[in-house]
């Protein structure tokens, strides 16, 4: 696992490829991105956001779907799944959207963690997905909550 060190990303810890680097983004808790691979190549990335809320996982999931469909261009919602790997109520969303001539695939994990909503969002292009699908699942499976208590919803 030396190639996949654990990083402390605020509300959660997760493993990531050793060559992924933290990047600065506004309005997020933490963001990691794959190495630069030349001009025009989309950098696959993982973004973590969290917020205090009493919303249930059903509310968070429904809201997340609705806001993606309202806010992103040409959204195509593919799947919503339970994410029983997490120790707290969770969902995994998959969708694509189109921006700047690219079709971007998004795999968003939503967790209801004792009074907080936590989102872990992976993005890559659809053509990159074959290379990243297993990595995204592995990284999501490695999530541990740093301030986790027993009372998720």
């Amino acid at each position: 696992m030396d190639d996949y060190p654990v990083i402390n990303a605020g509300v959660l810890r997760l493993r990531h490829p050793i060559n992924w680097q933290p990047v600065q983004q506004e309005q997020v808790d933490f963001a990691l991105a794959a190495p630069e691979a030349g001009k025009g190549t989309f950098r696959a990335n993982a973004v973590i956001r969290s917020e205090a809320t009493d919303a249930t996982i059903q509310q968070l999931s429904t809201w997340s779907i609705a806001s993606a469909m309202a806010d992103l261009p040409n959204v195509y919602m593919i799947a919503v799944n339970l994410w029983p790997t997490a120790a707290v109520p969770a969902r995994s969303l998959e969708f694509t959207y189109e921006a700047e001539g690219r079709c971007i695939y998004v795999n968003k994990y939503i967790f209801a963690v004792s009074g907080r909503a936590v989102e872990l969002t992976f993005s890559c292009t659809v053509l990159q997905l074959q290379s990243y699908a297993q990595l995204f699942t592995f990284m999501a499976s490695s999530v541990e909550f740093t301030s986790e208590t027993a009372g998720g919803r």
Partner: protein
Amino acid sequence: MTDYPPKQPRLDEWTSGIAQEELEVLSGISAKQPYTSGGPWVDLAALQLLFKAAPKGKLGRFELSGQEEPIDRLAEAGLMTATGKLTREGEFLAGPARSAAAGVQLSGSLGSLRTGLQLWIGESGALVAAGPSYHALLAAARRGEPVNSQLMQLDFVGHESIPTAVGQWLGLGPAWSIAGEPGVLPAAVLEARIADDTAPAPAEADSRFLRMWHEPWAVYTVAMSPGGFRAGLINAAASGFYRFGKVDGGVGLTPLPSGQLWSVLVNEIGGAAAGRRR
């Protein structure tokens, strides 16, 4: 991540009971994202003529004779001049056909309605010829109207957008996927249900199986080349997708969760396109 709706969303009561946990309703999402295209509609004869014109950008003298009707249709669609020369839009759409060595072919039905989707994947992207999509079939079936399965809507789709276009055309979207019993049934029983939605379910069917059985079914066969991928798919509306195929003792009928079908589209189309590039 603000402004959460104060109310609990509507729950899928039946599925929540099966899953033993509260699950939000997903069944309305797919209808909000139907396959859409602004491309021209043509019939098979016109499409074949477009392919003939693709290599040189125009029809040869001998290819013109006796083709007045399809040329007229292509001219009406803005793809060809009356003298058999491809217009700029015609050149653009026919582009993938010149280099295509990978293809995706789907045929489908919903009750008595028939449809099909074909993609030719070339270097620049894919030429799509789409018959009525899942949501178009469903709307026609609800109104008791026919669809014109002889017409196809042409469009150009970039490589990255191919799985999305196919998924939207199939009506793939979020659904809670639930396995029922039996998972294997006699071929004649499945064929009867495909032909007639009032056909009886197997006597041993459990409530999970019956829920899927009584949804409207759109039935598809998918073929991709190169690679030889083949699959039989059923879009069972709120019950999601099922895959069917021959197994020992009959036909296997297994749930195919939406994310898994998406992976199949990405991997198999990506594989077919990669095979083209080799």
